[in-house]
């Protein structure tokens, strides 16, 4: 579980995050949503320690991340997996070497065991026969799956995904969302996903935090979001006519059921 207590972050005079508090439970897909510039990425970077928050605290299973010494921070980071927006695969390494890298660095397993584990996670993300390929030789969707495989290879307790669907077609996006949800439930991981994708919000959002101009504007889940009366959230979620129609249809069906 990750608990965030009143964190704030500014860059110069610009306040990017203001007094944000929330709780991310294990075994759930927790989403951070908001318009561009709302502070989602900064929030996530504060959570994983790439930025130091100006105020407030972030507790990983009750331990304050900001007050940890370097050694403890390194230890906690080995329990974190991260899927980056651009995948962040190492260009000079093959798919297999990319996934094996955390194992090489932090375990003393034999090469046979490491290969076995790599093949296990590759199979888990439905990617076979790609071991010897370089990142430049595979598609965007495959890169995301390799990055997800690398993120889970050490069995992390926490998984962070920064816009996992950006640049992907809707079908591949669904596959990635499904994988993230399944992996979260299977391993009881605390997953935090930063997203713009409305499919992800409605399909996978066990817990959703909506940020607006650095403030937490709304918190709930994918069932509550349909009935939200928050105008800014509604403007954001149901921006397109298609989504507006979908909401109207959903409401109509619910009314019928009640009657």
């Amino acid at each position: 579980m990750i608990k965030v207590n009143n964190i704030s972050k500014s860059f110069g005079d610009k306040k990017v995050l203001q007094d944000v508090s929330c709780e991310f439970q294990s075994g759930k897909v927790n989403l951070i949503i908001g318009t561009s510039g709302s502070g989602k990425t900064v929030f996530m970077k504060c959570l994983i320690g790439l930025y130091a928050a100006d105020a407030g605290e972030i507790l990983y299973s009750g331990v304050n991340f900001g007050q940890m010494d370097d050694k403890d921070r390194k230890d906690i980071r080995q329990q974190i997996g991260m899927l980056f927006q651009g995948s962040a695969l190492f260009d000079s390494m093959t798919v297999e070497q990319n996934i094996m890298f955390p194992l090489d660095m932090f375990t003393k397993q034999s090469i046979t065991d490491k290969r076995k584990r790599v093949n296990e996670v590759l199979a888990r993300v439905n990617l076979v026969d790609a071991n010897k390929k370089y990142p430049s030789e595979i598609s965007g969707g495959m890169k995301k799956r390799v990055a997800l495989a690398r993120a889970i290879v050490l069995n992390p307790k926490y998984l962070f995904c920064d816009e996992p669907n950006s640049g992907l077609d809707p079908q591949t996006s669904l596959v990635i969302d499904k994988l993230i949800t399944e992996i979260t439930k299977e391993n009881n991981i605390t997953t935090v996903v930063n997203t713009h994708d409305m499919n992800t919000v409605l399909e996978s959002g066990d817990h959703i935090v909506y940020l607006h101009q650095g403030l937490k504007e709304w918190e709930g889940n994918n069932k509550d979001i349909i009935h939200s009366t928050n105008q800014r959230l509604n403007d954001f979620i149901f921006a397109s006519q298609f989504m507006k129609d979908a909401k109207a249809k959903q409401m109509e069906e619910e009314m019928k059921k009640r009657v």
Partner: protein
Amino acid sequence: MKLLSHIGRYLQMLGGMFARPENMRVYGKEFFHQCNEIGIGSMWIVIIISLFLGAVTTVQTAYQLVSPLVAKYVIAQIIRDSSFLELSPTIVCIVLAGVVGSKIASELGNMRVSEQIDALEIMGINSKTFLIMPKILAAFIVIPSLVILSMFLTVWGGYMAGTMTGIITDAQFHQGLIKDFLTFNIVFGIIKAFTFAFIITSISAYFGYNVQGGSLEIGRASTTSVIVSCVLILFADYGLAALLLTK
């Protein structure tokens, strides 16, 4: 003010580099990989430049020594000393600043922009130690080796050009090579090579590691790293000469 900020951040980067490696075997592998990248990758250009530097120096020295009072073996002495003291360490390192420095800056810049450095940090790996330290250590081994290779190739290039064109005979050239030979000149060249190796790798790593933006900024960082490295090499060249060669 901007210069002071750069110096501060550069020193901070160097300080942050000294941490215990997470896994010595992986770091060792990276070190040998860098030795190969810096050394083998630059060997051919060093060989070509050294041979031609020696050849051109021979021809131009002979062209300038018109007095019958100056013995021919002086040509070999001039080639030997200018190669050991200046041509091989300085010219080769300026070329390496372009070849190796720009490669390091663009590689690290690309890693920064594509979040690969962030990925290392999140895994709990000290990215400065993992990415910069092996490059500097590899350069300490490889660049002085290339400079020593260049010293001998420059002299050999001079010998070939001199004897094949009839500027100097074989015996005269050998006489010039051994006359008033000072071992310190080679030591001085190697000291310079170590200093320049540190400048080339640390400066280019600094500019690459701190890139912000996109491909345009990576290109700028690469160019800036080469310019700054070359200027610092020339400053250090003068500083070392003033420090170690003046009596």
